[in-house]
C-alpha cells in the first residue's frame, strides 16, 4: 500500500478540480481528460488498499487508519478510516465517477464553461469520497455539505430545462434541512460522549442516556432518509435527477444517494445497533412502502430520466430493507446492493443519455425498435435493467435474494412477503420500458433521426459497466469477500 493512500484518494480530485478552475483559460479542451486522470488515480489508490484492508480484518478486525492532527482542543483529528465496510463503496464511487467523467468528455462537449463543470464534478466526487472514508462525524458532516454545493451548481448551471434554478433550489433546501437535522444529532452525540471519533464511539455509546439515544437516532435517521429519498421525503429526487445533465444524474442516482445508506450502515447500525433492532419493523415497513411507491411511480412515467429516478427511489427501498432488517444476511444484501445499484443505475443513466442524445427526445412513447439501430447500447441497457430486476447471473440477483433472505431470517415474514411481491412492480416497469424502447418496429422519430450507436468514447463507459454487472454476477465472491465481513462487523457491534 502506498503511504497516505486514503488521504490522496480523497483530496487529489479536489485539488485537481481547484487547479482546473484556476487555470480555466489554459485547459479548455483538455479539462475532461485531466479530470478523468485525477479520478482514475483515486481508483488505483482505493484498489491498492484492498489487500491490506482484508489482512487487517482477518488479523483482528481492525481498520486501516490515517490520522492527522487537526483541532487539538476539542480532540478532533482529520483522518480517514478504511475497512471492509467502506472500501467497496469508496472504490465504486471512484470508479463510477471516473466513468462518468470520461463519458462527459464527449457528452458535454460544446457546453459552456467546461473547466468549471469538471471542477464541480471533481469536488462533488471529493465530497462523496470524504463522506465514505471519514473517520469522525464532524468531518463526515463537512464532506456531506461539500458534496451538496458542487452538485447544486451542476444542476443549476448545466441542467437541462428552464426549471433548473427552481429545482436546484428545491434540492438544496431539502438536503440541507436533512443535513441540519443530522448535524443536531452529531452535536448531541458529542455533548454526551465528548468525541466524534467513529472508531471509539461504539464503546462510548453507553454514556448517552437511553431516552436521548432515541432522539439522536431519529435526528440522524431523518438526515439519512432525506438523502436516500425514503418515501415521504423523496420528492426532491425525481426533479433533481431528471434535471441534472445525464452524467451527473448517473452520479447522483448511482452514488450520492448511497451516502445516506452508508450513514445508516456506519452510524445507525454500527453505533446504535441495538436501537436499530428495535426500529427494524418501522424501517422495513418504510422500505417496503418506498419500494412499492417508487415502483408504481416509475410505471406511470413517460420520461426516461424520471422513470430511472423513480426507480432509484424504489431501489433505495431495497437497500433500506436490507439494512433495516439488522440481520447479517440482510445487511450483506443491503451493502452489496449499494454497490450493484451504483453500477447498474449509472449504466442505465448513461445509456439513457445516449438515447436522448441520439433521438433528441426523452419521451418513451416516441421511441421504439431501437434494438436494431443501436445494438450495443440496447444490449447494455437490457443488462442494466435485468440486473436490477434480479435475473441471474447478473449482479443484482445476489443482493436481492440476500436482502429478502435477511428479512425472513429476521422473522419479518409478512413484510418480506409483501416486499417480494412488490419487486414484481420492478420487473414490470423495467421490462415494459425495455420492450417499449428497444423492441417492435422503429418509431417515426427514430427513423427520422437516423439513430445509430454513438462513438467508442461514449460506448466505453457503458460497456465497462455492463461487463461489471456480468462479472460481479458470475463472481459474487469478489465483492462479498469484503461485504460479508462488513456485515459481520456491523451486526456484531450492534448485536
Amino acid at each position, binding site marked *: 500500500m502506498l503511504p497516505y493512500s486514503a488521504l490522496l484518494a480523497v483530496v487529489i480530485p479536489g485539488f485537481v478540480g481547484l487547479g482546473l478552475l484556476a487555470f480555466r483559460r489554459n485547459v479548455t479542451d483538455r479539462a475532461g481528460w485531466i479530470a478523468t486522470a485525477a479520478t482514475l488515480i483515486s481508483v488505483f489508490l482505493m484498489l491498492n488498499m484492498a489487500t491490506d484492508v482484508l489482512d487487517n480484518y482477518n488479523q483482528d478486525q481492525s481498520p486501516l487508519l490515517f490520522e492527522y492532527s487537526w483541532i487539538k482542543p476539542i480532540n478532533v483529528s482529520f483522518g480517514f478510516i478504511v475497512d471492509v465496510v467502506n472500501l467497496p463503496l469508496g472504490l465504486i464511487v471512484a470508479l463510477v465517477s471516473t466513468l462518468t467523467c470520461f463519458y462527459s468528455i464527449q457528452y458535454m462537449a460544446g457546453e459552456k464553461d467546461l473547466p468549471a463543470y469538471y471542477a464541480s464534478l471533481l469536488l462533488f466526487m471529493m465530497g462523496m469520497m470524504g463522506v465514505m472514508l471519514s473517520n469522525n462525524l464532524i468531518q463526515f458532516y463537512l464532506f456531506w455539505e461539500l458534496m451538496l454545493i458542487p452538485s447544486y451548481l451542476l444542476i443549476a448551471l448545466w441542467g437541462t430545462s428552464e426549471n433548473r434554478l427552481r429545482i436546484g433550489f428545491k434540492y438544496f433546501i431539502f438536503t*440541507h434541512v436533512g443535513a441540519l*437535522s443530522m448535524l443536531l444529532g452529531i452535536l448531541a452525540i458529542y455533548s454526551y460522549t465528548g468525541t466524534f471519533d467513529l472508531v471509539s464511539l461504539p464503546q462510548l455509546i453507553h454514556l448517552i442516556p*437511553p431516552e436521548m439515544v432515541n*432522539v439522536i437516532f431519529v435526528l440522524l435517521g431523518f438526515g439519512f432518509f432525506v438523502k436516500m429519498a425514503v418515501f415521504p421525503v423523496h*420528492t426532491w429526487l425525481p426533479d433533481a435527477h431528471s434535471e441534472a445533465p445525464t452524467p451527473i444524474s448517473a452520479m447522483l442516482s448511482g452514488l450520492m444517494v448511497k451516502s445516506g445508506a452508508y450513514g445508516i450502515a456506519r452510524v445507525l447500525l454500527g453505533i446504535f445497533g441495538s436501537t436499530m433492532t428495535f426500529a427494524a419493523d418501522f424501517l422495513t415497513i418504510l422500505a417496503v412502502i418506498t419500494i412499492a411507491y417508487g415502483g408504481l411511480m416509475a410505471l406511470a412515467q413517460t420520461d426516461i430520466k424520471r422513470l430511472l429516478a423513480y426507480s432509484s427511489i424504489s431501489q433505495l427501498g431495497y437497500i433500506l430493507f436490507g439494512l433495516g432488517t439488522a440481520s447479517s444476511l440482510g445487511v450483506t444484501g443491503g451493502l452489496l446492493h449499494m454497490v450493484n445499484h451504483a453500477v447498474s443505475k449509472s449504466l442505465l443513466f448513461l445509456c439513457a443519455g445516449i438515447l436522448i442524445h441520439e433521438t433528441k427526445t426523452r419521451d418513451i412513447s416516441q421511441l421504439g425498435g431501437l434494438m436494431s439501430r443501436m445494438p450495443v447500447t440496447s444490449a447494455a441497457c437490457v443488462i442494466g435493467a435485468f440486473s436490477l430486476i434480479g435475473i441471474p447471473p447478473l449482479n443484482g440477483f445476489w443482493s436481492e435474494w440476500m436482502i429478502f433472505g435477511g428479512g425472513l431470517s429476521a422473522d419479518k415474514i409478512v413484510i418480506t412477503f409483501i416486499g417480494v411481491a412488490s419487486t414484481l412492480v420492478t420487473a414490470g416497469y423495467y421490462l415494459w420500458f425495455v420492450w417499449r424502447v428497444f423492441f417492435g418496429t422503429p418509431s417515426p422519430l427514430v427513423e427520422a433521426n437516423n439513430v445509430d450507436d454513438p462513438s467508442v468514447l461514449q460506448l466505453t463507459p457503458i460497456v465497462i459497466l455492463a461487463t461489471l454487472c456480468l462479472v460481479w454476477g458470475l463472481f459474487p465472491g469478489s465483492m462479498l469477500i469484503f461485504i460479508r465481513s462488513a456485515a459481520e462487523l456491523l451486526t456484531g457491534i450492534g448485536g
Partner: protein
Amino acid sequence: MLPFAPWLAWMIPCLGAVVTLALPKTKAQWSHILALTSLGVSAVFSLSMLPDVATGKLFEWRWQWSLFDMAVLIDPLNVIMASVVSVIGFLVAAFSVGYMRHEPEITRFWFLIQLFLGGYMIIVVSGDLLQTFIGWELVGATCMALASFWYRDQENARIGLKTGLLLRVGDFALLTAILSIYVSAGTFNLTELQANPEWLFTLSQSGMLVPAMLLFLVGILVKAAQFPFQDWLPDMLAASPSCFNALTECLAGPFLFARVLPLLHEGYLLGVGELSILFLATAWLGILTALLSALLATAQRNINRLLACSVSSVIGYMLVAFGVAALSPDIVPGYLAGTFLLTVDAFITGLLFLSAAFLAYVARSENLDQMGGIHSRLAHRGIEVGVFAMIGIPPLSGFWSSNWIQTVTLSLAESAARVGQTLMAASSYLLFGLILLTGGITAFYGLRMLWLLLRRSSTRTHRHLSVPSLMQRSLLSMLIITMGIDFLIPVLIPAFNTFFLPLVMKPFLVDVFEVSIYILPTMSTILSLLFCGVGAYLAYHVYVTQRFPVDRWMQQYAVLQVTHRVLFNRFYFDTFSQKLAERVIAASTLLMKFVEKGMDMGLNTVASTITTAAQLIFHGFERQFDIIAAAFAARVVTAVHASYHLIELEGLSQRPIKGFNELFNSLTRILLSIAQQLYRLFEEDIAQQLQRGFLTSFHRFENQLRRLHTGLVSYNLLMVALGLGLLLGLLLLFGLGGGG
C-alpha cells in the same frame, strides 16, 4: 463417466453461447458448427454419466465457487433428465440449422439456444436449490427473449413482455419459498436438506410452512404452464421460432417437484401433516389443468398453440401422479409413474413439435387448416407416433403411463376407503374419473390434429419439397428414438425402475411380467380404452366422415358457439392480463397525479403561505415603524416649542430688572428671529429632506432585498420552523420525560 462430466455438461453450452457472440456475423456456418459441437459434447458428457448411476455409484460433487458452494448431484433422476434434455437439445439444434438457415440474425438465435440449454442443464444436474434457481431464471429469461426473437413485429414483442412478466411471478414465488427453506435450514444444499429434515419442523412451527410450500407450488405451476398460470405458453410457442419449441422448458417444473418431493414426503411421514395441503393442491391443480388444457386444445387452430395446450395437459398428469404418490402410504409407485411419464413425454412432445415445425416449414404456415395435404411420409409418421403415444393407443407409451397413474390413484382411493378417510377416498375417485374424462378429450383433440394434418387436400397444390437434409435427418433420428422407446415400453419400465432403485430404495415392477399384471387386467385399462374410443369416435365422425355437421350445429346453438369462442381464446386470459396491466398502469398514473403531485403542491402551498405571512409581518411592522417615528418626531418638536415658550419667552420676561430686561428682550427677539430663520431653514427643509431621502433610499434598498430574498428567506424559515417543531416535539416526547 468422462472427467468432470456433470460440470462440463452445462458449462460447455454456456461457454458456447459466449463464444458465439464473438464470432463474425457474416460466417453463419461457424456459429452452426459451434452450436452443434457444444451441444453434442454436452450430450456426450451427460450420457457418459448413465453407466455410473446404473452401477449404483451415486454421489454429490461440491465445488467452492466465489464464496458459494456449488453442487451437482449424480443420481438417477438428475442423470436421466440430463441425458434426455441434452440429447433432445442436440437433435433440435441439428434441426434448427436447417430450419433457420435463412435467418440473418442466427448468431443471436444460437446464443439464446445455447444459454437456454446451459440453464436447463444447470437445473437438471444441480444439487443445490440456489443453483437450480439460477438455471431456472436463465431458462426463463431466454424464453422471454426467444418469444421476442423476431422483435420487430409488435405482437411478438408484446408476447415476450407478457411471457417475461408471467414467468417473473413464478420466479419470485419460487425464490421466496427457497429463501424460507434456506433461512430455516441454513443451507441450499439438497443433500443436507435431505439428511436433516429438522428444517421442516422449524418452518412448521413458525407457521411459514404452508405459505412457503404453496409459493413453491406456484413457482412450479408457472414454469410448468399449469392452471391458472398456463396462458404464457401457447402464445410464447406461437411467437418463438418453431424449431426451438421441441425443447419443452415446462418440464423443468415437474422435474423440480420430483426433485424435492422425496424430501417433503419424508417430512410428511415424520409428522408434518400440513404438507398434505400441498400434495392435494398439486394433484387437483394438476388434473384441473389436464382437463382444461385438453378442452382448450380442441379449439386451437395454430398448431403450436394446440401442442402447447397438450404440453400443459400432460404435465398436469405428472403433477397428479406426484400429488397422489405423496398422499399414498407408499410413495414409490406414483413417484415412478410421474418420473417415467416425465422422461418419456419429453421425447413424444419433442417429436410432435419437430414434426409440426417440419410441416409448418413446408406449408409456410402454422395454421392447421393450411398444413394439411402435404406429402411427407417422415413428418406424418412422426405425427402418428406422437399422437398415438399421447392418446394412449395400447402398445405405445401413453397407454402404459396413463394407466399406471390411474392405477395409483385408484389404489389410493381404496386404501383411504379402507382406513375410513372418506373424503380422501372420494377425492381420489373423483380424480380418477377426471383422468378418464381427460383421456377421452385428449383422444378427440389428438385425432383431430392427426386427421386435419393427414387429410388429402384438394384445394392446395402439391408442394415441391425442398427441405434441408439436416432437418430430415434429425427428425428421422427423433422418430427412431421415440419409436424405440414407445414400442419397448414394457421392457423399459422395469429397466427404468431398476435404474431408480438407488433413489426410491424399494423394488417395484422390476420385470415385464409384473408390469403387465399391474397394468393390463385392471378396470382402469378397460375404462380408459372406452373413453379413448368415445373420443376417437367423435373425432372420426367430425373430421373424417363429417357425419356430425359441427359447423351447422354451431350456427344453430349459440351455446356451442360461445363455448368454442371461449376455448379458442383460451378463457380470455390474455385479455384479462392485458387489462390487468393497463389497470395497474392507470392506477399508478392516478397515484402520481394525486398523491405525488399533491405532495409537491402541499409543500409549495406551505412555502408560499409562509412567504405571504412574512410579507404581511414585514409590511405591518414597517408601517407601524413609520407612524411611531412620525409621532415621536412630532412630540419632540412640540416639546421643544413648549419649553421655548415657557422658559425663554415667559420665564425670562417675568424678571424685574429694568433696562437689562429691554436689552434682553431685544436680544431675545433677535435670537428668536435667528432661531426661527434657522429653524425654518434647518428643521423644515434640510432635516425633513434628509429624512425623506433616507426613507426613500431605505425603501428602495429594502425592496431590492425583498425581491432577492423572498424565496430564500421563506424556504429557510419554513425549514427552520419545521426543524424547530420537530426538535421541540422530540424533546417533549423523549427529553422532558426522561429528564425528570
